[in-house]
């Protein structure tokens, strides 16, 4: 069974929890594989965490809309936001690190790049449009 839905969010940690509850329910109502659902949930969490940390410092009325399509073998998310320009595709995976010297950041981008099968990004009229596809 395929299933689609959307949710509007503010850039706060509580809203990420609300998204996770919503996403878990959507996945449970679809026939999507658990591993694929976990991959997409992780990707979207990393994007939302990045928005909260960096995306809306100069935005008066921040807005995020997440659309998802779920079906066996494939999950697609389209994320629209009016924050700053940020192209996830251009961020390099952090180099291998060791514990004493590692800065405890940069893991999110690595996770998105590993879990997503494809990432598309564009910015039009002040709105960022990020598309993430996870395939089995």
């Amino acid at each position, binding site marked *: 069974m395929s299933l689609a839905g959307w949710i509007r969010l503010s850039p706060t*940690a*509580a809203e*990420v*929890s*609300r998204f*996770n*509850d919503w996403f*878990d329910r959507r996945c449970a109502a679809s026939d999507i594989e658990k591993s694929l659902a*976990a991959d997409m*949930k*992780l990707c979207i*969490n*990393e994007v*939302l*965490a990045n928005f*909260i940390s960096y995306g809306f410092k100069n935005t008066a009325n921040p807005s995020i809309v997440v659309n998802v399509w779920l079906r066996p073998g494939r999950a697609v998310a389209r994320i629209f936001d009016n924050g700053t320009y940020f192209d996830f595709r251009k961020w390099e995976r952090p180099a*291998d*690190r*060791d*514990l*004493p010297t*590692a800065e*405890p*950041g940069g*893991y*999110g981008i*690595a*996770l998105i790049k*590993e*879990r997503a099968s494809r990432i598309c990004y564009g910015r039009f009229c002040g709105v960022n449009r990020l598309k993430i596809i996870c395939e089995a």
Partner: protein
Amino acid sequence: MGMDMRLEQTSLPDNILLVKLIGPLDIAGAGEVDMPFSVLSGKHDKVIVDLAGVTFLASIGIRVLVKAARAVNGRKGRFVVFGPTEDARKVLRSTGIDTMIPVVADQTAAISECAK
């Protein structure tokens, strides 16, 4: 709403502190445990962390673990995590954390690792 993140601590023999994390270690969960975990890791030299109850692990949760491990290891202590779910283990592997912090199967193995 979903389950909140919880941190439980238990003192074990040989001055080992067991920290049990329970709930989603997403940005909200990490925010809840970051401060208490930092305080604990600043005071104990042998810390084992039970991840079996962590239902979701995002990079912000990795950051909490790395900060704590650095604090303990910086004092020549031991910091070991154990029991992650398959999903959490995958995140630990993907980020290379399992090459920086010992990740073992269970509490017995974690205590043994602390003794090394």
